């Protein structure tokens, strides 16, 4: 019994910090009425040096279209393992996509930048559609995209 309690205390001690080191963040993307089909969006993060750090979300399920999200594709070579479990539907013109993710605290105020690459069938490819540094101050401030995204916000 004692060893069981000890194990329980130990695992709790180990996991609690893990729980405390992340928080739910809501990413809201509103598309303009660009007059085309559903847009594919890749949300990913680069570190302070500009190197690819990981993907946060892929809106759009058919991998053969991912090459149009050229910056993301360049960084990952289209590796779908990078977006396993964080894929959803593409976003139609004028629609809003709201994703709530449990993100590590270390992501903020550490020089990380969030990028969104966007592409629409038969319309322009827009790598680097949105670029926004991840800071606690910047939360809630909308940012406009280059072509397709009307505004993007992250809330904590």
């Amino acid at each position: 019994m004692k060893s069981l309690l000890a194990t329980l205390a130990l695992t709790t001690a180990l996991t609690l910090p893990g729980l405390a080191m992340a928080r739910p963040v809501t990413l809201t993307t509103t598309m303009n009425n660009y007059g085309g089909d559903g847009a594919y969006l890749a949300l990913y993060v680069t570190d302070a040096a500009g190197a690819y750090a990981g993907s946060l979300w892929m809106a759009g399920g058919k991998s053969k279209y991912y090459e149009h999200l050229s910056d993301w594709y360049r960084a990952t070579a289209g590796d779908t393992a990078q977006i396993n479990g964080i894929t959803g539907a593409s976003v139609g013109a004028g629609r809003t996509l709201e994703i709530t993710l449990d993100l590590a605290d270390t992501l903020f105020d550490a020089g990380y930048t969030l990028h969104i690459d966007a592409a629409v069938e038969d319309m322009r490819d827009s790598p680097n559609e949105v670029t926004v540094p991840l800071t606690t101050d910047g939360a809630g401030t909308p940012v406009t995209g280059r072509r397709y995204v009307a505004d993007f916000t992250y809330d904590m």
Partner: protein
Amino acid sequence: MIRALHRWPGLLAAALLIVLTLSGAALSVFPAAERLTAPQAETGLSVATLATRIQTAYPGVEQIRRSPSGQITAYWFVDGTPGAAVIDPATGQGVGSADPNQVERWLTNLHRSLFLGDGGRIAMALGAAAMLILSVSGSVLVARRAGGWRRWFAPLRSPLSGRLHVEIARVAVLGLALSSMTALWMSASTFDLLPITSSAPVFPTEVSGEIGVSIASIDLLGQTLVAELRELNFPYPGDATDVFTLKTDQGTGYLDQGTGAALGWTDLTGWELVLETIYMLHTGQGAALLGLVLGLMALGVPVLGVTGVLVWLAGRRSRPRIPENQQAAKAETILLVGSEGGSTWGFAATLHQALSAAGQTVHVGPMSGFDPARHAKAQRFVILAATYGDGDAPETAKGFLDRLKALGTVPAAPLAVLGFGDRSYPDYCGYAQRVAEMADTQGWNMLLPFDTIDRQSPQDFARWGRLLGQALGIDLELAHQPIVPATEMLTLVSRRDYGAEMQAPTAILRFALPHLTFWQKLTGQGFARFEAGDLLGIVPEGSAIPRLYSLASDRRDGFVEIVVKRQPSGLCSAQLTQLAPGDTAKGYIRRNPGFKPGKGRAPLILIGAGTGIGPLAGFIRSNKGHRPIHLFFGMRHPQNDFLYGQDLSDWQTEGRLTRLDTAVSRAANPSYVQDTLRDEGVEVARLIKGGARIMVCGGRGMAAGVTDALADILKPLGLTPQALRAEGRYVEDVY
């Protein structure tokens, strides 16, 4: 089996396929339109030149795309504002908006997925699969009906209720099969069922680090023609690690933005090439003309769907149910039916009813279900067998002959075989004959000698019924009532009477053309389109059974004319010959494509007697081309029944009739038309050698005599009437 494979996918998927093909046909217009409106690059234009022109006009250019139809689009940024335009390659300037056509997008989403996402895509893919099954099964059915694959475009001999269906199908099926197969491949690709591997080369990790190379100086761009270009992506401004990306018909490659050197290249994989070809074959992008052709063929599908449903409905209506059908094991009379079109079932139903009314227990079943073991109490077997195509077994008789051959001992109960056929086809009642012969060889006792019914004649059926009744020792009256088609009201305009002094008055009756609806005129049904040689079916008052008469006029002549002889006990002929101008009769048109003079200028030898002159006169009347026509006409008495006497002489003057030879049977020297034929044997032989076509119309006896006479005339030529018949140069309309 094939029929079921065609009917059920067709009925179930008709609505879906109509949406699919209409949207597809509409979409097929866009590639062609784009091809025509997009400013095309001059031949030999290199990508380097084009890119330089565009960059001069739009310094912030990011991407240049070329669509399969040749349209060049450029995307650029100016002070953070995105811009896009269709480019004129000659100048590099924008000439139009690059936004996708909203109508085309809407149609594409409808066509791909009914706006329903993945579930919709699957539904459309199933539709394409159904279309493929329909195309294949339909082709087999057409080949069967036409009598073989080589006769695919042969004119259909029998008047089909689904004629429009078959005519459209024959033309469109190839395109539909191609479109459905390419659609299935594309669906498989969308759902990742194909082993497509990506051909993107690995992004170069080492670049020169320089920027600002002049496009015109990049070798690869200078060597690549615009005709092969798909996409050219410019490096991100300010990012020295970025590169140019060039995509062509051959593959993809990267170019250094400082030196212009090629940094990597991969060719398109085989699978990708295949997919792209299939995409082109389906959408017409890059093959605009093919796209238009496929779109036109797709337009046939709604008509095919509707006519297909109508054919199915008509078929269901025409097949009667057999109430109180006894079980196979208990019945004393076993009635086996070999039917293709369902009409023989109708006769079986009539026989079943009459026998049951006479106290018999009768079981009706298909010939394919024949199994002597099942019929323990059978006292007699009756087989009603139609023939299909060129003497083949009809649908419900498949396997019967094999089973019969394999029988160890034939049943003790005797058999009667009745064949149903059409004398105008070769191998009349061929299948039924084979059945009778096989049964005989096997030692099966025959209840009645083998008999045939020509063109579903209820009179013949009734006659046979009496013979059957005698053999069974019962009173059997078979009153078969075929389905009566829709009739029009015909008003008599004029009549010319002959033979009044004799017991057989004959009249040439001329009716006005009935009023037709727009739809009837459009589809060419019924009275909208008829010719001499076709048949007019008259439904007399007080009877459901129509009588057929050969037409003596074309629609173009402006009237409906027939020659009617009053039969002593004929209900219909009595009513018709009593009509006064202004009276009406009910009639419909039955096409008779087998008895037509045909196009061309080959001479015609027309042989007829009595009322048989009707259609022949029609042919002469419409002989505007003055092809040589030689008429042999047999009558009884020139004073009384020289039908069309004055007309024939007028036509001769006009040149429509070359020569007339008559035979008079009630004269001092009686002669029949076959005698006159023999007299003119040399002339006839000469005409036949010159390619003449012989058409005979009249009674059975006359026709037999004519055949004999012709056999003699043709012998020195080394020909026989049978040979001419096989060639189609000897046709009969005999009754």
